[in-house]
């Protein structure tokens, strides 16, 4: 653990010195962009790529720095700590995970055509998976036509969809099996429209419709068992999506202490009141325990111990950290009182945005079921 905390200090310094100014710039406009439902400015996303952040966790062969999962998770945590726009680390992590999955195909055309452009920030990738249906009843279909395929259907929510140049999408084939394929935003028949959500107004979420889109055969990246391909993406992403929120929860706690220290009621600092200190103490416990759980899972993945499709340790970490982050935000609202509700433009936004942690990459409820079922199956008592 000592070595882990040493690395945390190094990563914090790295993020501050290398990307601190960029994160401040993105943060500066977040309130206005949230109201206008605008993503981080394109030039700042491009700067993230040109300074090596988009490629940081990607292999050196594609221009990355090949940092390990523990380091990448800590980088995302520090970005969350310093950046007030939740969209930035989320888009960053999704694009990195897609690039990693595509790199694993080992196909030169895929690496040249997609992985390197993603790493260099020349191509924005998004995952078009979600439908209003279970995975065995998706309506999006792909059929053979000549040497290629024709794709039809609709995906209801794509994080960063309005910015996406290439969609990694999952239709069902004639046999009812899911496949994974790449669709360009400018392929004839592709239509992208804004998607409304409870939060994440700066992620440029979109819906995507495929109207008889003709795809060459080389767009398939998983010609069978695309369900497992999609679950692999979700399993990876499950860990990354809670890293930045944990960093933000840390920042919220520090903001609470600063605000309440300077707030005087009945002649004394609110931060000196015992009930307030108790709440701050519970926030601290939540953050530290969530961090311990997250670092345990990140270390486990780094050591190669995680199962790629559904890993109980990774899933438990996502579940636990998400619960603690939302707990911290709820307590922050309670100790800040009216200031938290109407005095700051940020806390309400975080509460809305991080409500998504309850459903993203596997709802908390389905994770509970899967974790419980895993325990039962291992006990052989089904």
């Amino acid at each position: 653990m000592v070595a882990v905390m040493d690395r945390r200090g190094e990563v914090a310094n790295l993020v501050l010195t290398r990307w601190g100014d960029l994160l401040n710039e993105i943060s500066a406009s977040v309130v206005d962009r949230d109201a206008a439902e605008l993503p981080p400015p394109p030039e700042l996303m491009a700067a993230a790529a040109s300074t090596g952040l988009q490629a940081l966790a990607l292999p050196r062969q594609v221009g990355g720095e090949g940092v390990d999962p523990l380091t990448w998770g800590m980088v995302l945590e520090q970005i969350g700590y310093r950046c007030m726009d939740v969209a930035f680390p989320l888009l960053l992590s999704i694009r990195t995970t897609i690039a990693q999955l595509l790199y694993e195909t080992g196909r030169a055309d895929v690496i040249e055509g997609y992985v390197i452009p993603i790493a260099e920030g020349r191509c924005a990738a998004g995952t078009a998976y979600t439908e209003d249906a279970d995975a065995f009843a998706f309506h999006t279909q792909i059929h053979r036509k000549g040497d290629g395929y024709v794709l039809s259907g609709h995906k209801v929510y794509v994080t960063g969809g309005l910015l996406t140049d290439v969609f990694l999408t999952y239709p069902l084939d004639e046999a009812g099996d899911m496949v994974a394929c790449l669709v360009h935003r400018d392929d004839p028949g592709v239509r992208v429209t804004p998607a409304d959500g409870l939060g994440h107004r700066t992620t440029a979420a979109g819906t995507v419709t495929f109207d008889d889109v003709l795809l060459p055969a080389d767009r398939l990246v998983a010609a069978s068992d695309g369900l497992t391909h999609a679950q692999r993406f979700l399993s990876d992403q499950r860990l990354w999506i809670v890293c930045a929120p944990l960093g933000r929860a840390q920042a919220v706690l520090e903001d609470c202490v600063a605000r309440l220290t300077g707030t005087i009621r009945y002649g004394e600092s609110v931060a000196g009141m015992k009930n307030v200190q108790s709440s701050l103490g519970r926030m601290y416990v939540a953050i530290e325990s969530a961090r311990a759980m997250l670092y345990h899972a990140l270390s486990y993945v780094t050591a190669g111990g995680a199962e790629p499709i559904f890993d109980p340790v990774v899933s438990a970490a996502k579940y636990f950290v998400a619960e603690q982050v939302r707990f911290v935000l709820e307590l922050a609202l309670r100790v800040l009182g009216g200031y938290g509700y109407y005095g700051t433009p940020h806390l309400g936004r975080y509460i809305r945005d991080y409500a998504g942690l309850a459903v993203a990459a596997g709802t908390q409820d389905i994770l509970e079921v899967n974790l419980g079922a895993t325990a039962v199956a291992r006990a052989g008592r089904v």
Partner: protein
Amino acid sequence: MNFEFTGVLLRSAGNRSSVPIPAATLGDALTELTSQLPQMGRILLDNTGQLRRAHRLFLNGELVPNPDRTMVLSESDRIEFLTAIAGG
């Protein structure tokens, strides 16, 4: 051997929590199972007939990370699937 089903697979198994199959290998067992319960094939197998990796296979309570169709089974073996699927 016996296949034992819970959750989403229980529905595809016609609510039979246990399905005995006379088979000496996993491949034979899956072939017979999907012959008896065709709807199960679409859930368990991909378009090449391989078991989808999203279904984690437990043999007598032990996770088998990469189950092979040639895996030998005995009469008393018990196979369960954990269908840990998220999203949709």
